[in-house]
């Protein structure tokens, strides 16, 4: 598994993939937070809300783009046969690739902590940034990214074609993040089912952590969704045997 992990990390950092993903994520969000219309300097509130609302939508496209080649490329070029005939289990291959992408996501995520430091320095002493809620939001965002990575890898394992992998990834991420929330607000579900449907989606749990309360139920939810998609990925890999 470590061999796979190392190989994948080398691949990210010896090509432009890692640097482009880090730069894109950092710059797009910094522009929206500090420079473009509606930035925090204009609004005069010491809060990172703009960042935490926009970041999931950027990730929705960025992460499937990073993960689309994970398995699709191996299937296309036949190297999957090389990997699966080595003395490692299919699950080790999946975990190795997942962890490598998580490390890249961590490196993409970490630079954005500077926004927090900036805003904290800029804010007035009598109206400081809400540190608890902001740290909660960061934790929520990190888990959200980790779920998107699992979804992206799953999408890549079900096809040979990288473009299909990307589009499926974007669709599934959107479905998990936003669609359940939207569906729950349809009038037919008002009353009984809306809360239940909402809690299937990622959005409800992301918002819940963002309030600054790290609830174990939310963490367990995130970890379950990750496990679900990773098991799905293994099943997709094993489908060659059916």
């Amino acid at each position, binding site marked *: 598994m*470590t*061999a*796979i992990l*190392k*190989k994948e990390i*080398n*691949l990210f950092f010896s*090509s432009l993939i890692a640097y482009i993903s880090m730069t894109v994520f950092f710059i797009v969000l910094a522009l929206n937070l500090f420079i473009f219309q509606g930035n925090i300097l204009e609004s005069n509130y010491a809060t990172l809300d703009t960042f935490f609302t926009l970041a999931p939508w950027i990730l929705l496209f960025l992460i499937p783009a990073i993960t689309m080649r994970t398995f699709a490329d191996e299937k296309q*070029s*036949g*190297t*999957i*046969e*090389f*990997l*699966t*005939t*080595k*003395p*490692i*289990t299919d699950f080790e291959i999946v975990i190795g690739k997942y962890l490598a992408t998580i490390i890249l996501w961590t490196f993409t995520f970490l630079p954005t902590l500077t926004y927090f430091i900036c805003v904290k320095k800029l804010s007035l002493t009598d109206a400081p940034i809400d540190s608890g809620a902001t740290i909660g939001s960061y934790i929520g965002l990190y888990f959200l990214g980790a779920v998107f990575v699992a979804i992206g890898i799953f999408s890549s394992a079900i096809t040979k074609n990288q473009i299909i992998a990307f589009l499926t990834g974007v669709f599934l991420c959107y479905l998990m993040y936003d669609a359940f929330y939207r569906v729950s607000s349809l009038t037919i579900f008002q009353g009984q089912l809306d809360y239940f449907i909402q809690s299937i989606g990622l959005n409800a749990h992301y918002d819940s952590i963002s309030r600054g309360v790290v609830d174990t139920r939310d963490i367990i939810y995130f970890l379950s969704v990750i496990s679900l998609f990773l098991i799905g990925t293994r099943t997709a890999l094993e489908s*060659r*045997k059916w």
Partner: protein
Amino acid sequence: MSVSVHNLSKFYADQKAVDSISFDVKKGEILGFLGPNGAGKSTTMKMLTCYLPPSTGTASVCNLDIIKQPLEVKQKIGYLPENNPLYHDMYVKEFLEFALQVHSPQSAVQSSKRIKDTIDLVGLNVEQHKKIGQLSKGYKQRVGLAQALIHNPEVLILDEPTSGLDPNQLVDIRNLIKELGKEKTIIFSTHIMQEVQAVCDRVIIINKGKLVADDKPDNLQNLLSREILVEVEFENKILSDELQQIQHVHLIDKISDTHFILHGKDSSQLRKDIFAFAVNKNNPLLTLKQENKSLEDIFLQLTNKS
């Protein structure tokens, strides 16, 4: 037994890709796996390397069952898949390092020594600092072989290791396989007959998923070579009718007035008779050459009859 296969079958929907084949390979044997395209060669190899599970039947490698102990089996096998898939954006050494570590994590010193030895063995010295994508087909094939050999496996399974190589590279790779066969058990598939004659201790021919022959290359040849061909060339013109007088000759192909191919039986006697005939007619012999039926003919005969 290094490899032993019992009634192994693979069905895709209602199509039988491999239809209950059985064979054993002894340690240190080089087994040629022959068959037309789509005969089930690759599928059999994929089952032996635990890439695909068999539909029915069993097989074992070094007495380890391919279904119950896949990880141990994979540890014993070096596998070169068909079309030799490689990571084109990795460097040769980086790739071999990866292939080695994935088998058994080792210290940097051990692994760099093993990589160097393998690079020497397959003759990759000149190209070892390049990216795999930059290499020519012949060198890529060597990287594929190096990858299969890196962990010093007991059994090598090579799926068409010589396809698409130029004649010089062919000879190199064949010599390498022969050299490796002194210590390891090798199963390799091909559809080039000369290769089988040059390299293998034993040949298995499969057609439409069924085993049609399992023997030594020489025996297979003898099987169908009761009829022999003798090419003769005389200095002076000679008539076919005159040649008919020679005993044991039952058919004559005329190439030119002085050049013939005689079909007959009993090789040693036939050539003596031809010589005596030439002396008798006072017509010096320029060529007297016996030809065996080639493995190609045998292959065609075996794979077309069904």
